[in-house]
């Protein structure tokens, strides 16, 4: 297996402040990776270090098996064979759309250059706008030009820094899927930085969740949601609550809502106190259930309701129920657990 991008124990510092702490990950050829995390976690710095805008203080970065950054070397950005899409797109305002795309093709023969520009204009659906200037385009169109410009020289690695952050929320996922189709069509290895998990899920093959300069978990979107390795990931991805539980046997824990079966780590002893992650879709609304809870709050989300429930013990859980189950606040409703993935953490104090 060959990796297009390898980041090994990367450390980046600004003056005395350590922004990245021993970051390691790798990305296979033609895969789309994502670095997901809250703002200030250092995710953009990872991207800028890969691009060569920030020197590495320790560790190293390899692009296409060539070392481009280490503690004593920093290859110039223009020699790294990368493409980059910026948060503000950074289109050149004095050049037309076609000239923007052509900008990175300086050394290509004229004929191929022209064909490549046409190809990208067609691929991004911008054929009619080749002679337009960036300020004449909508945000979504500028986004596509930025993508076309970055992809034009067929970079070995495409870097995307929050490329959808200036878009309307409705447009983001649609654009993310469009971009994914184009990247897959061109077989491009790409890495996306974002704080928006839906964007990450829509675009990426694998996701690194980052927090405070560290990678917390590297996995598929599905696993990040259902099998978070720690409380940060559990909290950052999706919704849910953490409730107390006791180890009951080798493969079940006891909670106030009943027993939950699932795989347990072998070192857990019977009777030990733990915490369990309960997602809203783990709690099923069931009028026949003997367990009941009071509706504290609810939010209507179209196809379903998200109920905030308080049980008699005072513990609160969330429940996702189909939209036709319209209950009032303070009403008592029946619930039961249906947990596919048992996620337990050490009891917090």
């Amino acid at each position, binding site marked *: 297996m060959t990796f297009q991008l390898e980041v090994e124990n990367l450390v980046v510092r600004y003056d005395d402040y350590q922004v990245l702490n021993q970051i390691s990950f790798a990305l296979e050829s033609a895969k789309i990776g994502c670095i997901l995390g809250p703002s200030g976690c250092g995710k953009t710095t990872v991207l800028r270090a890969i691009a060569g805008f920030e020197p590495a203080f320790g560790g190293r970065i390899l692009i296409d098996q060539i070392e481009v950054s280490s503690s004593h070397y920093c290859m110039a950005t223009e020699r790294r064979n990368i493409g980059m899409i910026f948060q503000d797109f950074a289109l050149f305002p*004095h050049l037309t759309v076609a000239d923007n795309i052509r900008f990175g093709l300086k050394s290509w023969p004229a004929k191929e250059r022209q064909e490549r520009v046409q190809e990208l204009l067609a691929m991004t659906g911008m054929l009619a706008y080749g002679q337009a200037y960036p300020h004449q385009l909508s945000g979504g169109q500028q986004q596509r030009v930025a993508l076309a410009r970055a992809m034009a020289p067929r970079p070995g690695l495409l*870097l995307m820094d929050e490329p959808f952050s200036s878009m309307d929320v409705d447009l983001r996922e649609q654009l993310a899927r469009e971009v994914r189709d184009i990247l897959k069509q061109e077989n491009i290895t790409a890495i996306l930085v974002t704080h928006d998990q839906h964007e990450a899920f829509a675009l990426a093959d694998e996701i690194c969740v980052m927090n405070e300069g560290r990678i917390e978990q590297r996995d598929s979107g599905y696993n990040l949601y259902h099998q978070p390795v720690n409380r940060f990931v559990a909290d950052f991805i999706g919704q849910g609550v953490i409730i107390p539980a006791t180890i009951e046997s080798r493969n079940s824990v006891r909670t106030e809502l009943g027993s939950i079966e699932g795989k347990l780590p072998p070192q857990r002893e019977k009777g030990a106190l733990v915490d369990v992650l309960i997602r809203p879709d783990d709690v099923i609304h069931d009028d026949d259930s003997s367990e009941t809870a009071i509706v504290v709050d609810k939010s209507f989300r179209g196809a379903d309701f998200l109920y905030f429930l308080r049980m008699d013990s005072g513990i609160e859980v969330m429940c996702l129920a189909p939209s036709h189950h319209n209950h009032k606040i303070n009403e008592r409703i029946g619930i039961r657990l249906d947990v596919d993935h048992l996620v337990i953490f050490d009891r917090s104090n």
Partner: protein
Amino acid sequence: MAKSKIRSPVSRLEGLWQPSILLTALVFSIPVLTIASFLLHPSGDIWQHLVDTVLADYLLNSVLLMTGVGLGTFSMGVTCAWLTSLCQFPGKKFFIWTLLLPLAMPAYIIAYTYTGMFDFAGPVQTQIRDWTGWEYGDYFFPEIRSLGGAIAMLSLVLYPYVYLLARAAFIEQSICVIEVSRTLGCSVWASFYRVALPLARPAIVAGLSLALMETLADYGTVSYFGIGVFTTGIFRTWFGLGDSAAAAKLAAILLLFVFSLVVIERWSRQRAQYHHTTNRYSQLPVYRLTGARALIACVACALPLIFGFILPAFQLSLWAIDTYAVMIDSSFFKLVLHTILLGVSTALLAVLLALFMVYGRRVLASKLVYASIRVVAIGYAVPGTIIAVGVIIPLTWFDNTLDSYMREHFDVSTGLLLSGSLFALMFAYLVRFLAVSIQSVESGLVKIKPSMDEAARSLGRKSADILFNVHLPLMKGSVLTALLIVFVDVMKELPATLILRPFNFNTLAVRAFELASDERLADSSTAALMIVVVGLLPVILLSKSIASSRAGS
């Protein structure tokens, strides 16, 4: 998050960049530092003589002049700004930009044009005598060559500073604050006095400080009218009494005035940002004026325009038509050539230096560089007279030191190598006008976001390549503007040119002033008119940028 600092891992020159910017800033601060040092200089006999005789007059006249010009520019500037921003009346669009035209008229030119028109032998008083049969002393006519006259002349050409900044402030005020004040029971005038004016106050104060800096810097008008203020005093002490130390000490006191204005101006500009109430631009609340009110508004805007530009320009043209055939000869072309030569080369140097410093600030992102640019930028406030004295003292010292050294060791006399040369003159211009080009270049450079550099790099382009293919096309407009503004400023500059020009080297401004001083007013008009016409170019640029900057209308 990542800082938007541009680090280029390749350039080895960066190590030299910061020290050379700091050195440049230091070199261009020498004149001001020299003058400032004279504040502590021990006083000589001549200085004591000045203190005993004229210093009080200089102080009093300067304060009176500033008060008068302050009132004049305030009333004209704020009235016109209010009318052309928040009222609707016939001709408003015309006035919005023509009210800037007096900026093209140097004060010394308007001063002797008015003298030609209104003094005892001028056409106006002659006509009055013809009609009435009065003789000298039979009637009262205001004396144009007086302090009051100087106040009028300076106010007429300096009010656009107040007008420009006040108008921008009125326009930036949200419709809401004024409408809110109306709903709370304020009349049109009450909402002006209680809301609009206080909100615009920082901008107006900034405009007034600029106008007063120009007032303090003026030499042509006050000298022509024979008024004893600091600039004329410095000339008199320097050339009449031949005492450079006393002249420098006078300059140092003037510098104190100037610096207080600089402090006031910078402070007000900062406050003006806080007073910016909203980013939402809705259609401005327009008070639709009709009938008599519209007529009054029209007249109020027309008067500064007529007296500040149209009338003097008309008079100059009449004179020029009479005299141009005699005046335009080979020596006139030499004047034009000298002026262009000086203007173009200074403008080029100023822009190159500005690029060097402003770029350095962008790339190095250093506080020290930022501070040194701010220091250099003070030059725009310092009167040409002060700079000239501040340039000539260190250069003379340098020349004398070099000369005696060369005589001693090589038996060669280098004489006055620098102090009487074009080098000295251009250096003085740069001290004064570098700020102008820095400001203009900076405004262009902020349009180039750091991510554009990074985008170009990620597309495989090298630094020099990025400079030519991205920065240069984007900067072209502001660089050309900087060139033009510096060129025109150099062309209009009078006192520094008078003091520092090499022997027998004349410019249009100096020639116009000399002819006017010899009472050859009509003869001076060709050169004067040329200065005014070329001076119109940046004013037109300015009015264009104002017209296009207003969002939503």
